[in-house]
């Protein structure tokens, strides 16, 4: 019973976190085209900005990409929650010394959720790709990896490591 309560709390927090991250690439510096370089504390280029620069996106295209990513973050909220849950289950199973079969089942669940997540990323990339001009499209294939990393960054709330630092500073 207690475990169920905790799991529910985890899922609620995860989904809330995912929704929060969906507002344009996640984090206050997750979007593109604003605030970059405006603060000495926020000078590192985000993956989304890297993606935009790699493809030399125009301002409008950057906005479209932001929107596409935000929509994908919303669409993937449940999948990301599933991935987070599978991570907890996996670590718990190893600590508890569960059988190889049980661990494999969790691993299979993770694999399937990760594939669903990649499918959403690929769909998002297709949308962005379709909005590119021919000269931008020629090297676009290589940019998918950066977009996938941008998803990871956004899913982590725009800076997982930043949160870690903040947490430790408290």
């Amino acid at each position: 019973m207690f475990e169920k309560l905790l799991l529910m709390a985890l899922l609620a927090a995860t989904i809330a976190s995912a929704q929060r991250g969906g507002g344009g690439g996640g984090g206050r510096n997750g979007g593109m085209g604003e605030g970059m370089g405006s603060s000495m504390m926020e000078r590192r280029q985000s993956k989304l900005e890297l993606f935009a620069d790699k493809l030399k996106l125009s301002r409008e295209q950057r906005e479209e990409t932001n929107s596409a990513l935000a929509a994908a973050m919303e669409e993937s909220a449940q999948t990301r929650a599933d991935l987070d849950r599978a991570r907890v289950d996996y670590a718990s199973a190893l600590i508890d010394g569960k059988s190889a079969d049980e661990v494999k089942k969790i691993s299979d669940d993770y694999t399937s959720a990760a594939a669903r997540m990649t499918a959403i990323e690929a769909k998002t990339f297709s949308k962005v790709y379709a909005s590119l001009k021919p000269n931008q499209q020629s090297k676009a294939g290589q940019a998918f990896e950066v977009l996938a990393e941008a998803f990871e960054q956004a899913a982590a709330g725009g800076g997982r490591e930043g949160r870690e630092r903040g947490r430790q500073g408290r």
Partner: protein
Amino acid sequence: MLCRLFLTGILASGFAFAQRGGGGDMGGGGDMGGMGGRSGMDTPSVMPSRPSRFDRISQVLKLNKDQKKDVKSILDQAQKAATPVRDQLAKSRLAIGDAVQAGKGESDLKPLVESAGALESQMAGIELNAFVKIYKDLDKDQQGNTRAVFQMMKGMFNGKNWNVEE
């Protein structure tokens, strides 16, 4: 069972914390090099120097000398194991990008997407196995402070050096 409760709890509280203080700064710090980190020449003077991952793990878990050695060894080994997976994942993502560029349909993309999912799962396995090894090396008090480390494990080996954020 108890461990599962504990892990679930730490992850939930971690997310709750992220809600409050999160938003993050998009990883907005300087690169950290080596175990001691650096506040390099390219870092503005107003920016506080940022401890390396290893330093943060050591601080959070209050590791003693032997544990530090063990943790470093565990993470170094995991990095080695992750290297071929990371390379395959990069190739896998390139293949997906190329397939989209070539105008391939969903059915053509499906095996590529599934292959990427399997590689990500493999990477997660490496991350979590390393976490569990660290966890088991800790005493009870330290185990209660593993929340941040559990979260740090996600994507830890995506780069060439786990101790350097990319």
